[in-house]
């Protein structure tokens, strides 16, 4: 029983960790101090299980301005502009209150972007749920989508992309990730490199602090949710997007007017984290006065004020001379800005309430000196047999047409319009391509440049081979970006895993990191930041190891961006890249053969890179009418999606030397379907030859029909109907 446990265990600290705290302090910690350490040393805030492994990720690159370690990474896109981007997970709160859980997740990642001094310009939301035939999964799906829209639409940041997948292991563990992208003048980024002086003031502005989310996300996300997680419930919070919008404008005005020495969002571990990190990063200490903190409720105790994760709050570091101006800006935006702390020399953090000292600890011991674990790791016992049973060699009895429509209407593949239409994609007037294509394309305001953004995870592949699954995720994200003509620049990543205290989860984690690292090195797309979400399991069902990759690409001239849809008759359709008999972990295998087994397709990183470079060059030479990558569902789905998107039919022939289901549904990597105008064919084929990328002429565009010679005959209309109606139909069930 929790009651009989000593306090430190109730707060999730181990006896060893408690010992370290006593060592640091040279005495027993008080209750407020213990709560501070418990929050800061939680898995969510301290990364204690992942730190050592994250170090092996490549983070260097000519374009990288800010790598991991700050609130978000930053990349140089020229013209003196920086792109700031980061992805984060809000799976645990969303599992018990989908609307507010997802909404507050959006709020959190947006504050990470503004705390870098950047204006948020785009959101993406990679989501994973259990199958929609379960009522609870429908409730979670509808609630999460409504929550992301409800918050994102209300703060004026367009939601331009994301992904939605459905799989059994997510039934009790939805995986809710949100990525935010911002833009700032490179010389105005707010980083810990900015000098913070002794005697500077810490101004807390935004919402008042309440009892909600005490030990919220950090504790919630640092342990598995047991059935009916009653205890963790009060830590779900209500988002106030209106307050967030004011926070965005006020924060950016403070930055633009050069009034700040530093800026911190209040996220996990609330005030404790923001104050201790700000002080530690500056190599200083701080005096924190809890009596100054505006409270929503009377009689809050020190530990509550210190660890409350109330939303929509920011902390500005200000030199005393600028306080009046800073408070005036907050005032103008209807926000309360009060001085709660002051930096001091020496690394001590002293906290007072009612005049009494309630905590006195070294700031660094909270922020930087948390425990670090190298947890035991071992492959899952059943991995070998999972990989044994390869669907590539299964006997296929269905007809091609039946298979085509089942895969096209599978929720993983089918149109996500039902989701995308609930998001404002237009606000800020720069969205050139939103959800639907391979990557979203967002113009950089007032320039010809555009960002191409994609988020991808390959859970099913990861389940069968976490190394390959992770590498494929990076490859697909980069390929998606390259299909628009943009050059992949850098990634952020969200690592969604089970309980790290289980060796097989830890093995999946380290293998995934290896996969991301190798792929990012091969593509020269460094890791600028991310987030780790452990404990995504309940009972004995853990989520598939799912690193979600957020890829940033750059288009020098948005007028040269390539669409994913065919455009009218008479263009030639090619497949770039080779199709191999690789049905392991494919959508076809799951939907048609009911098999989730085998080995994922091989991935030749050098070939993948050559393909991406080719796409970028072809786009720059204006040689492509359309380009669409072969992902879930393989070639058949890539062709169908290009036809539906461009409302243009096609006729193609398949190689004679392979069974139709391999040609149509194999998910071999590094393949793209392109269409090319007559006049450009010579130049295109020459370019491909020089690049040494395998090329195969498939056929021609035109007419209302989808005709795959010898295998299947249907119409664009029929395909569209199946593709568009799948998810709405499941929801009406």
């Amino acid at each position, binding site marked *: 029983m929790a009651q009989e446990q000593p306090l430190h265990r109730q707060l999730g600290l181990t006896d060893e960790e408690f010992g370290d705290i006593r060592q640091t302090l040279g005495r027993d910690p008080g209750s407020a101090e213990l709560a501070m350490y418990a929050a800061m040393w939680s898995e969510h805030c301290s990364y204690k299980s992942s730190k050592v492994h994250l170090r092996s990720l490549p983070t260097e690159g000519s374009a990288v301005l800010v790598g991991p370690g700050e609130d978000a990474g930053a990349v140089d896109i020229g013209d003196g502009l920086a792109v700031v981007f980061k992805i984060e997970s809000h799976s645990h709160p969303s599992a018990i*209150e989908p609307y507010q859980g997802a909404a507050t997740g959006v709020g959190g990642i947006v504050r990470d972007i503004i705390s870098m001094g950047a204006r948020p310009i785009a959101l993406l939301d990679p989501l994973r749920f259990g199958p929609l035939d379960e009522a609870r999964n429908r409730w979670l799906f509808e609630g999460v989508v409504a929550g992301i829209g409800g918050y994102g639409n209300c703060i004026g940041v367009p939601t331009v992309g994301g992904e939605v997948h459905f799989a059994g292991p997510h039934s009790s563990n939805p995986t809710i990730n949100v990525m935010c992208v911002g833009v700032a003048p490179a010389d105005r980024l707010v980083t810990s490199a900015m000098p913070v002086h002794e005697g500077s003031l810490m101004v807390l502005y935004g919402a008042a602090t*309440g009892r909600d989310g005490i030990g919220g996300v950090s504790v919630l996300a640092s342990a598995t949710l047991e059935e009916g997680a009653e205890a963790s419930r009060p830590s779900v919070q209500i988002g106030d997007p209106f307050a967030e919008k004011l926070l965005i404008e006020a924060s950016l005005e403070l930055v633009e007017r050069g009034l700040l020495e530093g800026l911190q969002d209040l996220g996990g571990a609330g005030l404790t984290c923001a104050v201790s990190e700000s002080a530690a990063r500056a190599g200083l200490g701080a005096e924190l006065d809890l009596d100054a903190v505006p409270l929503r409720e009377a009689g809050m105790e020190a530990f509550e004020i210190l660890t409350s994760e109330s939303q929509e709050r920011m902390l500005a570091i200000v030199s005393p001379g600028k306080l009046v101006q800073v408070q005036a800006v907050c005032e103008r935006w209807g926000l309360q800005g009060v001085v709660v702390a002051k930096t001091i020399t020496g690394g001590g953090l002293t906290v007072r309430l009612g005049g009494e000292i309630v905590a006195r600890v070294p700031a660094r011991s909270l922020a930087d000196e948390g425990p670090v674990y190298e947890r035991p790791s071992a492959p899952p016992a059943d991995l070998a047999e999972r990989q044994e049973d390869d669907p590539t060699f299964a006997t296929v009895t269905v007809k091609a047409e039946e298979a085509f429509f089942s895969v096209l209407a599978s929720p993983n593949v089918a149109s996500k319009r039902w989701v995308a239409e609930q998001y404002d994609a237009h606000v800020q007037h720069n969205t050139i391509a939103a959800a639907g294509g391979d990557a979203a394309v967002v113009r950089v305001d007032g320039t010809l440049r555009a960002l191409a953004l994609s988020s991808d995870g390959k859970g099913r592949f990861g389940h069968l081979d976490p190394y390959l699954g992770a590498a494929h995720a990076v490859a697909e994200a980069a390929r998606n970006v390259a299909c628009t003509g943009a050059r992949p620049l850098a990634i952020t990543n969200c690592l969604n895993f089970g309980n790290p205290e289980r060796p097989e989860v830890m093995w999946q984690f380290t293998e995934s990191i290896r996969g991301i690292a190798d792929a990012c090195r091969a593509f020269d797309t460094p890791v600028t930041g991310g987030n780790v979400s452990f404990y995504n399991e309940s009972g004995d069902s853990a989520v598939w190891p799912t690193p979600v990759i957020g890829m940033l690409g750059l288009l020098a001239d948005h007028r040269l961006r390539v669409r994913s849809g065919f455009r009218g008759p008479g263009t030639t359709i090619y497949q770039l890249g080779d199709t191999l008999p690789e049905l392991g972990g494919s959508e076809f295998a799951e939907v048609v053969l009911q098999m989730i087994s085998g080995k994922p397709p091989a991935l030749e990183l050098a070939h993948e890179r050559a393909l991406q470079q080719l796409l970028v060059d072809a786009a720059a030479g204006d040689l492509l009418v359309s380009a669409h990558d072969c992902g879930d569902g393989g070639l058949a789905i890539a062709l169908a999606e290009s036809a539906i998107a461009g409302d243009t039919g096609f006729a193609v022939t398949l190689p004679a030397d392979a069974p139709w289901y391999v040609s149509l549904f194999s998910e071999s990597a590094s393949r793209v379907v392109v269409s090319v105008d007559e006049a450009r064919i010579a130049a295109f084929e020459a370019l491909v030859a020089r690049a040494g990328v395998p090329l195969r002429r498939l056929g021609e565009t035109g007419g209302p029909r989808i005709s795959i010679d010898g295998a299947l005959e249907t119409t664009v209309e029929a395909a569209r109907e199946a593709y568009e109606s799948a998810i709405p139909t499941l929801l009406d069930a």
Partner: protein
Amino acid sequence: MRYGFEVLVSLKAGLLDPQGKAVEGSLPALGWTNVSDVRVGKHIALTIEADDEDAARVQVAEMAERLLSNPVIEDFQILSASELGG
């Protein structure tokens, strides 16, 4: 027998009520400076067919718990019941 019920669904105490906050914040500008603790909740009125009021009340409570509210963030309260005749 038919009964009319009214159910009030409100955010748990301690949780932020952004609506209430915004309304409260706007009142002074309208010259009303003497109002506080504004909370906005949902009011659900419904008619239910049951043998007797107790049976009806039990079902309404279950509906409120499972459908009308999310116990994670909301409390509900059955405000009133009235007999509407058969």
